[in-house]
């Protein structure tokens, strides 16, 4: 179960099965999906010398090249493909669709290939984004595919794309899972039904030999945990997403003051970059130590290279040369990134903000929280976004508290110069995921029993005040896998098909030899990705493998922006 490898398998097949000088044609959506998991040097090594977009009609004709088309079967891409076949620019065409093609389209394609340039047409199900091995997403963006139609219901376009993406993921991993969904979520149910329909409709594909039918797919809804996407993140990968922004593996640094030209845009890839692979889940403090080690390593390497005195030295240099080159590029990149992160952390006083956030997310202490929050809102050094985020967290936790001060805080925000729109996002989030919408007792403060548990947790002591929070989803999965509170989860996460096997959760021995995919309608966060990566290590002894995905990757700003279009009061 590795999302990155799943896509790499298809990419590899495409460029290896066809030998000779090649051009790779991609479309608007397959371009980022492929570039997330492969590099230019990889493509070059596979004789793929040119990469272009199929929509680009100004390409020069090069009949001596073979052409690999990897496109999504969307109307726009199919039209571009038909145009291409009517006046072919390359010698032979090998066409790969990233998803199931309508049967009628084959006929249309056949009619338009009058010059007989097509050698092969196949479906290669690489139709999702794979930023890390245990994380995938569908890449829904509010501008192309708004998620909600009105309230908690699917926009049809987004639903269709999500079903396709999940279908491709399952085929690429060879899973025909049993589907469970969060009982209070109409969107999770709808997605499950559509997916189940597609899987039974395409029985040929999902009945292929070797397809694992014991896997589980849990479809959950972001509204049951609105807290995680609102928290300041402290691990490397998550920080980059939250503070600088990663767009399909690319980081744009051109706005950074005094940036050097060669690092204006950098790529992050686990495959190519061992330092990143090792430190993506380190928290900010450990990251500092780790980058210092990297620089020292680089310095000793450089020094040894300056003292080439013997043939043996030179040989050693030549041996280490590619490693060395990679290292030197990497050092510049990571030093720049970490430098920029720490500048932003200091500029926005994120340590102070985060301390309050974590307290609001994890501990029930109304009076002191309110006091701290008032002080934060009145503090001119804190940005408006951060004030609002803390206020939303407060509103979520104390929504049902008798003496909550939500109205007063709104006024305080306004009087401190925060936009009315931003203040309104408190109500937006409450409408989307207030206590009435949520199914679980997220803050464990709704009854005496859960309050007791919450206090007990508080007594266990915390390692790091900034990273106390654990995503609700990770707790859920761990309890299910370990066989704890089976009936509780059985109630909240029912099977789509009530008669399906296995009907029950909560065998006391827990789960063994099980692959579980969790899909979050409304977007997944990097904190959850890290939690799942860690759980994968913890649960390896039970041979349980996890993967998490979502309609998109959410940061606090993208989360609030998406909600404000639909849940505005």
């Amino acid at each position, binding site marked *: 179960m590795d999302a990155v*490898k*799943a896509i790499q*398998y*298809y990419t590899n*097949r495409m460029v290896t099965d066809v030998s000779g*000088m090649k051009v790779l044609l991609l479309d608007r959506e397959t371009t980022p999906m492929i570039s997330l998991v492969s*590099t*230019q*040097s*990889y493509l*070059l*090594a596979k*004789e793929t*010398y*040119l990469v272009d977009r199929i929509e680009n009609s100004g390409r*020069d004709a*090069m*009949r*001596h*090249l073979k052409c690999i088309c990897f496109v999504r079967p969307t109307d726009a891409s199919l039209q571009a493909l038909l145009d291409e076949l009517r*006046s072919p620019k390359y010698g*032979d065409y090998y066409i790969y669709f990233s998803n199931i093609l309508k049967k009628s389209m*084959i*006929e249309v*394609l*056949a*009619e338009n*290939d*009058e*010059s*007989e340039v*097509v*050698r*092969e*047409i*196949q*479906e*290669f*199900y*690489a139709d999702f984004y794979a930023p890390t091995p245990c994380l995938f997403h569908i890449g829904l963006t509010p501008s192309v595919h708004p998620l909600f139609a009105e309230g908690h219901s699917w926009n049809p376009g987004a639903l269709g794309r999500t079903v396709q993406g999940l279908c491709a993921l399952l*085929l*690429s*991993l*060879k899973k025909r899972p049993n589907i469970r969904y969060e009982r209070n979520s109409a969107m999770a149910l709808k997605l499950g039904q559509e997916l189940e329909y597609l899987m039974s409709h395409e029985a040929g*594909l999902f009945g292929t030999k*070797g*397809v694992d039918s014991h896997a589980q797919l849990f479809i959950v809804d972001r509204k049951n945990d609105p807290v995680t996407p609102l928290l300041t993140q402290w691990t490397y990968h998550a920080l980059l997403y939250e503070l600088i922004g990663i767009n399909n593996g690319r980081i744009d640094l051109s706005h950074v003051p005094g940036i050097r030209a060669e690092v204006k845009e950098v790529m992050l890839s686990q495959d*190519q970059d061992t330092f990143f692979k090792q430190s993506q889940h380190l928290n900010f403090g450990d990251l500092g130590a780790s980058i210092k080690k990297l620089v020292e390593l680089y310095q000793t390497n450089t020094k040894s290279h300056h003292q*080439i005195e*013997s*043939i043996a030295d*030179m*040989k050693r240099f*030549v*041996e280490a*040369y*590619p*490693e060395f080159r*990679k290292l030197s*590029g990497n050092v510049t990149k990571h030093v720049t990134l970490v430098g920029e992160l720490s500048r932003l952390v200091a500029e926005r006083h994120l340590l102070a903000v985060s301390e309050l956030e974590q307290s609001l997310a994890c501990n029930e202490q109304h009076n002191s929280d309110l006091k701290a929050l008032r002080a934060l809102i009145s503090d001119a050094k804190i940005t408006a976004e951060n004030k609002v985020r803390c206020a939303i967290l407060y509103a979520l936790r104390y929504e049902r508290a008798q003496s909550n001060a939500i109205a007063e805080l709104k006024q305080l925000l306004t009087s401190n110069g925060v936009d009315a729109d931003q203040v309104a996002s408190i109500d937006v989030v409450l409408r989307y995921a207030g206590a009435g919408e949520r199914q679980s007792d997220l803050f464990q403060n709704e009854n005496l029993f859960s309050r007791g548990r919450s206090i007990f947790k508080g007594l266990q002591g915390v390692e790091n005040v900034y990273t106390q929070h654990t995503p609700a989803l990770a707790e859920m999965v761990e309890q299910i896998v370990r066989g704890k509170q089976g009936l509780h989860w059985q109630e909240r996460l029912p099977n789509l098909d009530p008669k399906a096997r296995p009907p029950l959760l909560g065998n006391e021995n827990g789960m063994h030899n099980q692959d579980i995919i969790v899909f979050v309608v409304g977007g997944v966060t990097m904190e959850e990705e890290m939690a799942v990566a860690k759980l994968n290590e913890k649960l390896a002894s039970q041979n349980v493998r996890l993967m998490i995905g979502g309609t998109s990757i959410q940061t606090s700003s993208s989360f609030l922006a998406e909600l404000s279009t639909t849940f505005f009061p």
Partner: protein
Amino acid sequence: MGTFETPPLSCPICGVQAGTLQLLNMHLDEMHLSDSPRRPAQQDDLDDVADAILGFFRSKPRAPEPVARGRRVVDGPGVVRSLTAGFASQRRAAVSAARLEDNRVERRIERLALAHRGGSELQEAEQRVVAWEADDARESCPLCERRFGRLTVRRHHCRICGRLVCGSCTEVLSVGQGLRMCGDCGRTVARIRTRHESAPGGGALLAHYEAIRAGMAEADGLLPAFNKMVGGRDLGRAAALRRRLTRAFGDIDRASKAVAALPGASPTDARLHAAIRRAVVTYLQTHMFTLSVVPSRAPASLPATPLPPRSASGELPAVDPVPVSASTTTSVPPPVSESTTATSMSTTATGVSPTGGGGGLAASLLSYVIPSRPTATGKEQAALLLDDLVERALSADPQRQARLAETPLEEKLASLQVLRDQRQRVLGFISEAQRERRLEDAISLQASLSDLDVELSIIERNL
């Protein structure tokens, strides 16, 4: 056409009645195929004329490659589904219909071309090949739906299908005295042209590319065996393999440089050539490491070189591509080993070493005679030889000079600095090798020293 009362059509040659224009024209195609304006015409004659006029259609029709068939289902992680078989059978139907139409149009054009040779009474001759629609048969253009008028949207007959179309929906095919044809027939003609188009271009590129692929195939075949031998005792065989590998790498490098130097008809060509060169540089960088740990020939007394720990695998991690600068052939370290190995052979072959020499015996002696310090005459001789070498290097690559002239000064200075650094280093290695009596190494180092000298003086001349 349906709503119009069309007058009965009859064949202008035999008078047979035909229901529609299409049917009539098909009748003309089939029954009067061999008819020509000046009967009786010989088929050979016809072919000659057609060849002369339609030569561009005729060069080497391309046989379609067989379509890969079958359902390759699962042989790796992900599910795949092949639609090729279904596609191919649907295409067969579509293509054979199109082929029929193509042949028909092609034959009509040939006969029209012949008709044009007849000179007088062009229209009449044309209509004997293709019957025309009556002028009042249509009120609007069937392609753009605009109504015909006396002045604005004028009627024209398509010479290939005989239909009435408006002027803006026609183009003129430059066959005979020019054939006006409608958009539909124009598309068919374009399709025929694509099908008959001469063999794909890129002749020179393809030749060089084949050389690269052949070199890589050879190197890939040799490398596993060679890497196994590295650090072993059988230095004789290792050295033999090494020579073959060096030759293969040299071929690859040369061919890729030739590709990079090819003139690009378009920016895309230039991009393609640069990408091929970049791929080769990366390939060489990744695969040439192990070469440096085996001496270039079986030494009599050389102790086995200790193996650096990770050299045994040829599969080093992919390197980020290095931008190739045209001004430096000897750039950063990996090419040093490249030039060391590649030139050790060429120097002995061309007899370039300061002491000169020739013939098998002299060459073998040469390997043991290395002047520790060139004498005054030796120096002069060396300078002369150097000039000679520079000339030779430049004549081997005529565009070099021009490229150098375009290189900015800073870049030249920078590469000069790199080369000088390397020269200093190589001098150090030579004296060390001589001190330790590692004559083999000293020889190949000497060779790379002269290489560096050539490179230096080429750049210095161009400053």
